[in-house]
């Protein structure tokens, strides 16, 4: 009996110590992200200056934007128009049609006057064969390249095909449904241009476009999502990008550049093999391989997160979609841990090896398993009447209040520094603050459940099926509406 009591106490203390350690790590990350933000505030001048300096110089590096598309006929034209609105002196847009079964390709050909051109496609990274490359006969769309390829089934295959076609030293990988802020490329490239060591990747902040008003491919009014699930995701994304990733960026150990919007150095990507078409977390996997390559070659490098670059994406708004997405992410995380195990706790890989990856392992990978075991433990205690309700309430209160505090810290940080451009209406922040108060009770258990299902599927060897999220599209403002009624974004 005494053995069981010892196990009982050990488990209780383990959970308690773990919670305290997570809290301490969050505080540390707030400190890191604040420092990173302060540094970027000094290094990054205002938009006018950046545009003035980069636009006028012949040395400004050109960028390719790669956007794979599969069955996007509802939104493809608007989305390509949105990409065309990006303000940058020299860039090309590569839309990769992954053998869509709808009219995506036909719409592109018809609307942008595309014709097939001979093109020496370099198979730098593995992808399904490219059937043809199309360019527009209309000079207004000269930036646009459409790649028609055989079905790869995954976004990573489409991205690799885009990498094979792209002709610039830097490329941005994005989703075709993303609405990119017009100044995004300037701000990201400013980091590349002013970096004293080679910048191999730049990550941007992603936010939910659900609820935003889009006009001519631009978000003209940023609003907090109205439905509850996207609003929780909004908080989650803000936490992830503005605290975690910015914090990792401060110590140059960012482990992930989101597949939704990230800038990469083509040479390093090619040398590290591009995206892995079999991986569920292809973005993390590729960045880790890039870091490994740079470390093995003994070259200095930098990977950064820019707070003030925003990319709007439509988040899943149904329970089923979010379940599928999170299960996939959890499988991806398990896969990363198992594939890149040699990097973990390995001082050869610097801060990434001795700090970042162990941190991810302890606080992100193990957390859902501990939480679910804690839950079952609690249920067991409930049956045997072993719960001290007073202590339980105090400990739950501590965890709840701390998680609310973290979200509020984030909102304050964001509102104060205007990290997310345009998102500065007081009412929006109050909405998010309210969401922060119910998120730990409703949303967090759901995500924990999905993560555990994902782990279970990975361990039991169930085949992963990649299903794209059903997009409903963002709100569009009619052009005829008088301009003076339109609320203009203030800076």
């Amino acid at each position: 009996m005494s053995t069981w009591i010892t196990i009982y106490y050990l488990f209780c203390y383990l959970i308690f110590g773990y919670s305290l350690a997570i809290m301490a790590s969050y505080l540390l990350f707030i400190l890191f992200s604040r420092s990173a933000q302060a540094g970027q505030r000094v290094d990054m001048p205002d938009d006018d200056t950046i545009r003035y300096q980069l636009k006028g110089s012949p040395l400004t590096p050109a960028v390719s934007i790669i956007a794979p598309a599969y069955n996007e006929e509802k939104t493809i034209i608007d989305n390509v128009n949105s990409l065309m609105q990006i303000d940058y002196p020299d860039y090309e847009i590569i839309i990769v049609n992954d053998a869509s079964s709808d009219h995506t390709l036909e719409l592109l050909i018809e609307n942008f006057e595309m014709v097939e051109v001979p093109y020496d496609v370099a198979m730098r990274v593995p992808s399904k064969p490219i059937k043809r490359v199309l360019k527009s006969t209309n000079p207004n769309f000269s930036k646009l390249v459409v790649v028609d390829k055989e079905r790869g089934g995954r976004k990573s295959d489409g991205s690799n095909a885009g990498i094979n076609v792209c002709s610039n030293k830097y490329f941005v990988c994005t989703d075709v449904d993303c609405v990119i802020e017009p100044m995004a490329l300037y701000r990201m490239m400013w980091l590349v241009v002013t970096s004293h060591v080679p910048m191999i990747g730049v990550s941007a902040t992603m936010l939910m476009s659900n609820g935003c008003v889009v006009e001519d491919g631009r978000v003209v009014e940023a609003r907090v999502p109205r439905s509850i699930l996207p609003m929780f995701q909004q908080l989650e994304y803000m936490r992830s990008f503005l605290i975690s990733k910015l914090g990792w960026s401060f110590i140059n150990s960012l482990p992930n550049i989101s597949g939704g919007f990230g800038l990469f150095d083509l040479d390093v990507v090619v040398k590290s093999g591009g995206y892995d078409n079999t991986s569920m977390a292809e973005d993390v996997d590729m960045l880790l391989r890039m870091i490994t390559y740079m470390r093995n070659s003994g070259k200095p490098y930098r990977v950064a997160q820019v707070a003030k670059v925003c990319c709007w994406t439509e988040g899943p708004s149904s329970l089923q979609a979010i379940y599928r997405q999170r299960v996939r992410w959890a499988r991806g995380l398990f896969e990363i841990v198992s594939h890149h195990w040699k990097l973990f706790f390995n001082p050869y890989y610097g801060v990434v090896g001795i700090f970042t990856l162990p941190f991810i392992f302890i606080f992100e990978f193990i957390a859902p398993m501990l939480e679910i075991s804690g839950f079952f433990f609690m249920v067991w205690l409930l049956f045997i009447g072993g719960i001290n309700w007073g202590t339980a309430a105090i400990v739950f209160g501590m965890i709840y209040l701390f998680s609310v505090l973290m979200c509020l810290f984030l909102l304050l940080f964001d509102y104060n520094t205007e990290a997310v451009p345009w998102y500065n209406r007081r009412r929006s922040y109050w909405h998010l603050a309210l969401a922060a108060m119910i998120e730990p009770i409703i949303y967090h258990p759901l995500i924990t459940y999905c993560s555990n299902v994902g782990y279970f599927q990975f361990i039991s060897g169930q085949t992963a099926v990649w299903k794209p999220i059903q997009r409903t599209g963002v709100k569009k403002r009619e052009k005829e509406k008088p301009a003076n009624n339109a609320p203009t974004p203030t800076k």
Partner: protein
Amino acid sequence: MDSVSALSYYYNLITTYVTYFWTYYRDLFRDYPYEVKTAIWVILWSLFLIIVIFVRLEHIGYKRTKRDELRKKLEGRFGRLLDSIFACDVYNPMSREDIKNAIDIDPERLAKYGYLRNDEQRRMVCRMAYERLMRDEVAGPSRTKNLQLFLNVLGLQNFLEKEITRGSTWRKMKAMTQARAFKLYMNPWLLNRLMTSPKVRLRRVAMYMSVMSSSDSELAYFETDFFDKNSCIYDEIELGYILNRRRNAGMKLPNLAHWAELQKKDYTKCMFVRLMRRFDQREYCAQLEPMFRESKHKKLIEEIARTWGYLSYTEGEQLLVEALLTQPDDTKVAILHAITRMDTGKNQRVIVDTYRYNRNPHVRYEALRCLWNYSDDGKEMIEVLEQRAHPEDKKLFAFFRNPLTLSRMPLNKEQAYHPSVETVYNIAN
């Protein structure tokens, strides 16, 4: 009660309250286990911080509203004048009186507070002028002079100087960027002070501003090993901009090869060699010869070769041919391109031999491209080589004959990234 005793009174009051509550809670949970105590401690702090954050959120919102109102007010007062400055297309210099008369301000208020009441207003007006300037496509001399006069009348030139000397790094950077855009003369002593700052970005911006706004002697910064850290593309952009302005103003450009020699870091040397190419400094190419012979840095050798090719420095051709035998493959490609650009007609044999005897398909492919452009009979030579080629090599020719590959020639780009590089590797493998 004087201010000191009031302060100590409130201090005592607060410390008494804090001590009371601290003691109270400590005693309340005295016999509890430490995990409960810790949880209570976290809860209290969290609650306190949550309240602070809510108050702060409201405070920021209030400040932002005030800022917007201020901006609106200042736009009403100075916006029209600024717009008229940027709207004038002909040379129409204004006088101080014109400016003063155009400012829409109540005389009583002017007598009491001046044009601008505090630093926040000054910053805002600088910002308004700067935004308009950055979006102005024309930016002729008349506009610049009128803008400078406007800033002078409002005392903003002095204000920007003050901003450079005090405040945070961010403020200093902003003030310098604005002063530079307005083409204001800044006291060199101020800039020199910033050039000793531990912050690299601040140092560089100050240096570029100093070089931009002053005489030849300021260029001497580059004669020292100023770039203590590796230079970046930004440095090259800035230097290119400064040198371009000097060239447009009819000033003599400095000897960039000499600057390259003085630098300790190879990456920085590369930057100056590239700039030589951009500013057509053929007369100094000979100075690069020792560097080309002695350097172990692959990138530097490539840059020198490209520069010689671009500037047709035919005196260095022999050195290039010799280097072709010893350098690694990537460098060989740059050398081949340089020889092709020189196009003296003497070294076709060297290119053909590179194609024949090199085992790297990328180098062989590039040799073919060079041969295509080399002298009059280069294309004929390719026909001959193709007829005699090994069946495996036919693929190389087939790829080379792709219409898009051929349309990209001649090789007038400095080093356009060519997507065929890895393809050629793939063909070989």
